[in-house]
Structures are given as structure tokens and as C-alpha cells.
């Protein structure tokens, strides 16, 4: 039973598969090939999407989206190697748009809303990209590295005068 790496490389071209350590495999894929990869992996048994998160690599000018998949059941009984798979893809900081993966994993829906709110990444096809946590709409998404939180606090909160009698 060939390992998962050969399977991935066999099926997709332009994809890098690297084994970081025992039980964690990293898969780098293109933005366009993301959905097909996720589908393929889901069929391979990686049915659980643990997390969708984003790393702001400001110096390379990209957002690196990380999908963590893990596998529990293989053909019905508990899988031997509890390997978790980390799928990464990159999105340019200029116009961060990506197709939503809700169609493959419904659980991705709140994560993608949060990424939209905090990083400004637009997931096309997402059912409802409404604000999730923030009470007020802030012009620059706050989690971005170029967001100066001290300046924001200075302008927004310090400018409100204390109450004198």
C-alpha cells in the first residue's frame, strides 16, 4: 500500500509533498488546484478538516493559507498511522481572493468568515461573509501585520475625552 506521498505526486503535477516528521506531511499546492486536492484527500480518508488559518508573509507579499486535515477511519476501522496532513497555498496580498472550500468541508465556513474579517481575504462562493467578532467596521483588517494597533487605539479610544465633573 503505497504511502500517501506517492499517491499525491502520482495524481497531481506541480505539487510538492514533504514529510516534516513522523505523522505530519506538508503539501504545497497552487491556488487553482486547491479544491481538487482537498477533494482527493477527502476521498483518501482525510475526512476531518481541523483548521483553516492564514500566515501574513508581508515580506514576500503573500498570504499563506494553511488547511490541516487528519484521518481517523480507513475503510471503516481505525487508521494505523494517525498522520495529519497540512495543505498550504499562497494568495497575493494585493488582491487576496480564493474559491471557498465550504463545498468540500462545511466546517470551513466560520474559519473563512474569520479570515475574511481579520485578513480581508475574499472567499468567492461563501454563503455569508458577514462580520463575526468585531463590533465596529475597521477600514484595515486588524490581523494584518501592517495594521498598527497602537496607532488605532490612540486614534479611536484615547481620543475619547474622560468625563470631568
Amino acid at each position, binding site marked *: 500500500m503505497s504511502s500517501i506521498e506517492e499517491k499525491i505526486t502520482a495524481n497531481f503535477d506541480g505539487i510538492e509533498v514533504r514529510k516534516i516528521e513522523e505523522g505530519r506531511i506538508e503539501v504545497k499546492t497552487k491556488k487553482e488546484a486547491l479544491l481538487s486536492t482537498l477533494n482527493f484527500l477527502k476521498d483518501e480518508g482525510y475526512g476531518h478538516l481541523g483548521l483553516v488559518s492564514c500566515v501574513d508573509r508581508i515580506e514576500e507579499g503573500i498570504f499563506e493559507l494553511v488547511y490541516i486535515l487528519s484521518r481517523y477511519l480507513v475503510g471503516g476501522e481505525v487508521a494505523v498511522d494517525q498522520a495529519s496532513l497540512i495543505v498550504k497555498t499562497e494568495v497575493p496580498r494585493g488582491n487576496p481572493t480564493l474559491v471557498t472550500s465550504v463545498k468540500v468541508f462545511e466546517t470551513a465556513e466560520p474559519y473563512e468568515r474569520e479570515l475574511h474579517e481579520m485578513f480581508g481575504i475574499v472567499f468567492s462562493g461563501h454563503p455569508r461573509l458577514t462580520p463575526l*467578532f*468585531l*463590533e*465596529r467596521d*475597521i477600514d484595515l483588517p*486588524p490581523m494584518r501585520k501592517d*495594521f498598527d*494597533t*497602537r496607532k*488605532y*487605539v490612540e486614534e*479611536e*479610544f*484615547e481620543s*475619547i*475625552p*474622560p*468625563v*470631568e*465633573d
Partner: protein
Amino acid sequence: MDRRQLIKWLKEPLKMSNKYSLHVVYFCTGCGIIEIPPSITARWDAERFGVKPVATPRQANLFLITGYVSLKTLKPIIRTYEQMPAPKYTVAFGSCPIDGGMYWDSYNTINHLDKYIPIDGYIAGCMPRPEAVFAGITHLWTLIDEGKADGYKKYRRNYSQYRSNQERLYGELGWPPRFETEGLENE
């Protein structure tokens, strides 16, 4: 209940009754609330001092804010504060309500809570222990005695400023102003 106490009771029953019967409504935000159950139950027993938790702000006169206040929870805090009947006091736990504490530079935390609602007393400590809570309460007694715990009067006096601060923070608040804002400097 010695003779001096009795005279104090007869002279200013309002102060005394407010001191020895503080019905508390806890606003459980941030990490402070975990300190409240031990303060009520057997070991520290707040009821000795007449401090009793009650179900609704209508029945309460002490408002305990137990931790950092995020932007989203400030609105319910303002509503609850305004629903309490008049002689009411607010006590804030920990350093976060004072100036934001360790979240001082977070875009989501309210740094100076007393810009939006009057706070009568702070209990320092990154989550004060029950003994500190009782120390705070007994200090509150002295404030009440000296008449300095008049947060509710300040709120009513400077309601326009409070109101404008709140509106600056949220834009549109969603409920009408509690008191007529113009020309209320009397009180």
C-alpha cells in the same frame, strides 16, 4: 449592635442600610467571575456582610464588573447599569477595566471603562482573591459613609458626556437617551 451603631442608624439610615445590604448583580465578563463562587460559599461567605447575589439588575444596588470589557460586552453593561434603581454603586475587578491591563493596545478592549459608565471603586489585582473582594467592599462602605460613592449622581449630572462618549464609540446605540441630555447640570 452597640449604642454608637444605633445612633448612626438613627442619624442616617440611608447610608447605613446601603452599606449593610448590598444586593449584587455580577457582570461575569473576563476571568474575574471564577473568584465569586468561593466568596459566596462556605469558606468566605459574603452574606455575612449583607452581600447577596440577586437575579435582576432591578433588585440590585451593587454592580460588579469582574474583568476586561470587550467592545461587544460594553453595550449590555451600559443597559444593565441603566436598569438598576438609583442609589447604585459599581465596582470593577482587576486592572483591565482601569486602563486595559495587558490588553492595553488591543483594538477590541475598552481601556478606560469610566469614560462610559461611572465606576465607584476598583479592586486591583490580576483577579483579586475573595479577601481582596471583601477589602474592596469594606472600602466601599467607607466611601458610602463619606458620600464619595456617588457614581450614579455623576452619571446623571454628566449624562451628556457619557452619552456622547458611548455614541462616539458605537455610532448608533439602539435605545433612546435615558435622561434629557440638555441642561441637567443641577442634581
